[in-house]
């Protein structure tokens, strides 16, 4: 399809490329720290807040404070005040990959018209219930399906999605082990 309007997925690729250039010579500035706090509300309901983070050598704040309610549904005998934490994990994975799809498409001069990700995470709850020690608590697998309408061949679109996985933080967090330390003050 012939198009004369420049590709615009709303991603500032120049800024990202400049950042890569600048940060390869200043590895300490590339060190970020992401934070969240979480307050118990009642029952299995809790509310997490994100606001500040550290990066580029200094403290930053989001434009506003964001909160996320999490709970469990009524089939878990809970009151369902919010998404279950594992659904938030799916949402985080989808958002991370989708941000990557937009960025990579912009980098490759591919105009996106619509991008929809559908996620399914299988889980055997015998794990979290402690009913079977051979069953893990977490997902037994996650399936992500993309429907993308864009000015590109099916293989070019697949390549954008593949590259997005290669550069995704949440995909890495989920597919690779991470040391977690939990302490009590």
């Amino acid at each position: 399809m012939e198009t004369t309007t420049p590709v615009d997925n709303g991603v500032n690729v120049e800024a990202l490329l400049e950042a890569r250039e600048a940060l390869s010579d200043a590895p300490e500035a590339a060190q970020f720290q992401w934070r969240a706090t979480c307050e118990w509300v009642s029952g299995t309901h809790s509310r997490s807040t994100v606001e500040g983070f550290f990066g580029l050598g200094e403290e930053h704040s989001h434009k506003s404070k964001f909160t996320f309610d999490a709970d469990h549904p009524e089939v878990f005998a809970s009151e369902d005040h919010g998404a279950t934490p594992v659904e938030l994990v799916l949402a985080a994975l989808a958002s991370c990959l989708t941000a990557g799809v937009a960025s990579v498409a912009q980098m490759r001069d591919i105009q996106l018209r619509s991008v929809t990700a559908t996620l399914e995470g299988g889980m055997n709850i015998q794990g979290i219930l402690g009913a079977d020690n051979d069953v893990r608590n977490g997902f037994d697998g996650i399936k992500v399906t993309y429907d993308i309408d864009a000015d590109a061949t099916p293989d070019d679109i697949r390549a954008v999605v593949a590259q997005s996985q290669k550069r995704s933080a949440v995909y890495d967090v989920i597919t690779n082990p991470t040391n977690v330390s939990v302490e009590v003050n």
Partner: protein
Amino acid sequence: MHTTSVVIGAGHAGLAMSRCLSDRAIDHVVLERGDVANSWKTERWDSLRLLTPNWQSRLPGFGYEGEDPDGFRNMAETIAFIERYAKVISAPVETRTTVTSVRSVDGGYEVTTDRGAWSARTVVIASGACNLPNVPALADLVPAEIATLAALEYRNPDQLDEGGVMVVGASATGTQMAAEVQRSGRPVTLSVGEHVRVPRIYRGLDIKWWMDRCGVLDEHYTEYDNLERVRNLPSPQLAGSDDRRTVDLNSLTDIGVKLIGRLAGINDGNAQFSGSLQNQCVLSDLKMNRLLDRIDEWATENGLDETVESPHRFEPTRFETSPPLGLSLASGKIRTIIWATGFRPDYSWLDVPVLDRKGRIRHDGGVAEAPGLYLMGIPFLRRRKSSLIDGAGDDARDLSAHLASFLDGPSRS
């Protein structure tokens, strides 16, 4: 001793540079820690053959004259080839001369060796890209009862215990070792991260012929916006053999090798693998198909479609959708781990402040960030083919020209 240029290393890269310096009547010496082609003699596994066809090892003033241009040299033939080149070009090689330090002095460099010191206005580092194994830090966590060896230490399957072997890394090295070890009767698990899949033969012709002819191998380093990425790509899954077989992941699955994700951690004696195997396979299939698309376009533009086989695509890489994410290293299933996780150069003797934070020489296409210091024989130094014997010629021609104008000084350049 004084000379105009000291070349460090008498492999194909250093010798190509020597020939170009001789052509320009630039006085020089080639210092070699062992014999000519030393790394090829002492740091390669027994069955290794070049992954480029015989015709493709073209060096300045030297090429293949035998009767099997499409064959692949074994190590003895490769060594003989490089030794013959050194003789034909009368390279001024000082063998058994190990460089212990290179430092900047007024008017150039002082090169100290175990057989005396040289001073020179220029130095060309051609000491190789694969001196040291790039073994990941988590290797320290492997339980003591498991034997580990780096690809540089591997010679043949006989040196391994009976029992299972995990090969970590799916480059040319990792895939060739996985195939050989599996065929020796030791079941192989291959840990697969980022890898580059290419077929040996496409449309009836060697992939290296296509890549050479359609200009892929001549791609210049200035054409890439992310040199860091391309300079660190794993070597393509290729092998040289009489039957010209492909050594991709499907061929390994066919002989019983088990594919598993990238080794991501070792915790309490349990190996943990990344859940990214599917994406790694999809990425390299897509990348291979882009290369084949490019070849097809070039073939059409150049009127080859009538004379060679029709375009086709290879079976996508087969992988388990839910491969194991963990493996107990205490279970006895794995007796040996081979680290085919890449190599890095050794610059421990280089006392010129040109190393980046990862210990690599900062350079622009082989022109190091210190006046009169040059680098040869590094992947993507100046072109995609810089990692091949065949790439040394053009790099040496360019860099010897730069070196000559440096010697002439700014007033005359």
